[in-house]
């Protein structure tokens, strides 16, 4: 792999990662990031954050010109069940994302202690209350399906109806990271989890999936990033550009190559 082959990340057909067309109309869009357990999507979240706050994904997009003007000036909220606020602050400070440009809702720290014994609907409404309601905002929701395991008796439909849909209505763009799993499951819990993933795909306008190579580990390739259209009808002026990249993630740097 040489530098000549290196590619920029493009998700929409206007050569952007997050198109400005998403913020032009009164719509609520959803983008899913699905990843295998061994290929963490954190670098992709960082890239989206860079694109939104700095105007360009410096992590891997090679730009010789000066960065374009920021296309998005609204608030960004990160809601995470697996990382705390400090983790995001450390990671984003390395890539020079200003801390004032985002807010973290930490649903990892003491979540179980705070919500133990509460009915499911109360827990979900508390989570909703902690997420700011701003129609022009971007919300990144990290692994919400963990609630299916944390809350006894919660179903996929409940989770979508009481959390994902209301959060989607609260923002212009919702980015949901989920685990990439087989949609054919045998256990009851497995069926609920796969149902949640399938429903998220149906609501998404774009699905970014990260998976390792089928041939196993390679020294110069981490995995495969596949960008596909989701199930939702697209009424925007931009279209998702379906593509497949190989990516190589090493020491906080990511390189993309066309497959």
């Amino acid at each position, binding site marked *: 792999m040489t530098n000549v082959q290196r590619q920029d990340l493009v998700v929409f057909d206007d050569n952007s990662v997050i198109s400005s067309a998403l913020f032009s109309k009164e719509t609520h869009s959803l983008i899913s990031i699905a990843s295998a*357990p*061994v*290929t*963490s*999507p*954190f*670098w*992709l979240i960082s890239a989206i954050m860079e694109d939104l706050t700095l105007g360009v994904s410096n992590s891997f997009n090679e730009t010789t010109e000066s960065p374009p003007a920021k296309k998005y000036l609204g608030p960004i909220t990160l809601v995470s*069940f*697996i*990382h*705390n606020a*400090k*983790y995001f*602050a450390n*990671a984003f400070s390395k890539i020079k994302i200003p801390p004032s440009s985002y807010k973290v809702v930490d649903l*990892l*720290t*003491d*979540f*179980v*202690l705070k919500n*133990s*014994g509460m009915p499911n609907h109360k827990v979900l409404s508390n989570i909703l209350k902690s997420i700011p309601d701003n129609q022009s905002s971007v919300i990144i929701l990290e692994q919400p399906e*963990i609630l*299916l*395991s*944390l*809350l*006894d*008796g919660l179903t996929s439909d409940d989770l979508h109806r009481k959390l994902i849909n209301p959060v989607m209505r609260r923002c212009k763009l919702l980015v949901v990271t989920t*685990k990439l*799993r087989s949609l054919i*499951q045998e*256990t009851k*819990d*497995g069926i609920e*989890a796969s149902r949640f993933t399938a429903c998220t795909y149906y609501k998404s306008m774009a699905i970014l999936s990260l998976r*390792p190579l089928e041939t*196993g*580990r390679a020294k110069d390739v*981490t*995995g495969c990033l596949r960008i596909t259209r989701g199930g939702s009808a697209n009424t925007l002026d931009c279209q998702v550009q379906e593509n497949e990249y190989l990516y190589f*993630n*090493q020491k*906080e740097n*990511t390189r993309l190559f066309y497959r």
Partner: protein
Amino acid sequence: MSFRRRGEVLNGREGSPRTIPGRVPTGAPRNARNGSLQSSKNEITHDVGHSQENRVNPMRRGLLSSPINSMAALNIGNNPRTPNIRNIETLDMNHPGIRPSPASSQQTTSTGSFDLDRVLGHMGLPLGNSMIIKEQGTTEFSAVLCKLFAAQGIMHTRVENLSSRSDNTHLCVISANQGFSKELPGVYKGSSKDIKKTRIAEEQSKVTVQNLSEQAAPTRYNDLKIAWRYKLGDENSSQQPKDNESSMMETEYKDYNHQFNITSRMVPAPTPSEISYVTPHQPTQGILSQLEQIIKKHDNKLIRLIIPSLLHPATYPPTSFRLSGIIPLLHGIRSLVKKYENRCVLLATMSSDLVDDFLLCEVESMFDAVIDLEPFSQEMLQFLEKAYKSQPNKVQHGLLHISKLPIFSERGEMHEMRSHYAFKNGRKKFAIEEWDIPVADVDDSDKENSSALPHGHEHANKGMCESTESRSSTNISIDF
């Protein structure tokens, strides 16, 4: 030339000392080894009395307190709730069980197995991270690693070092087995020959007339030497360049990692001040609050959380085998480890045959590092014993698979390695080495059969014989 504006409060009102980029503030506590700051944003306090205590602590340790910090403590802002001094709830600067990771510079502690430390890529488990060791089958290799991890923590507490205080580590075991501490291995004291030599050295170090008269000549010349070349050989071997990591382990981090003898027991056994138990036979909330109390009680100590045999049917109630039973517990423990990330690590072991794949996958997602042990079947062991007939010490006991590595996997790197490493459990070491399929030796009795082998095999065996011969001839040329 100063760029400070008129009216600007010295040291700001955020409690963070003004620093030059790339430098560590003078008054802030730093690690003696890497100079990294050990404070967190979460640990800001508004308690003035407490902050004064913290101001005194560096003096006790022999550190100079920065005048800026002293001024900051006196600084009265408009807002009485403004945090002026950080409550630094971190480890002792000279903690023997802490070193910076060579890969990420993050503070790291040893797992008790040098090879496992190396495989993790950080020479240990970084603080604020968790690891699960799964094991297939009915063997108990993961239990050995678990006990090594615990024993290493106890050894750090018992290190007699002038620069660091003892009682620097606390173990917290989530298990109903209160006899866990009595099963911990003792430190490996060398072979029986080494032990005898140590005893002789101890005897010689005693102040007696005979010893004093013998001390006139250097000790090494008193030993019987067959030939002068051995002495030369010794000197040469001591001058051989060692790799950077091992030389650092011997000098700067000599108490970081210990070698344990799993056939011996730790004497004296860990006391309640060194180890605490939390039984899993209680509601999740009870376990978590009990854990947090222990962590808070042992402030300024490294906390090693251990979950031996997670989801063992004899220890865990049947409700734990549901997702909503075990995941809240693990999520809560993960939350604690991340909350106290400056001084907390977690190791769990479990049998992967006891739970279904979906539950196993969900459990794994709660940990930062995932290691899978796959012991060899009887047939494979017999084959290896045959292949290593002349070198029985080389027989491995199973494969070690890596699914996730701390820090690396979290930031997106793919480190899944299947069948890349093999492990063997010895009396004095849990060795992990790169796995390669051995070539079976052919006995004299089998030589006749070897003619029936394909040409490739014959050639390989011939090559092995040649290499053995050439090795022996090399030895001869060196000795004589």
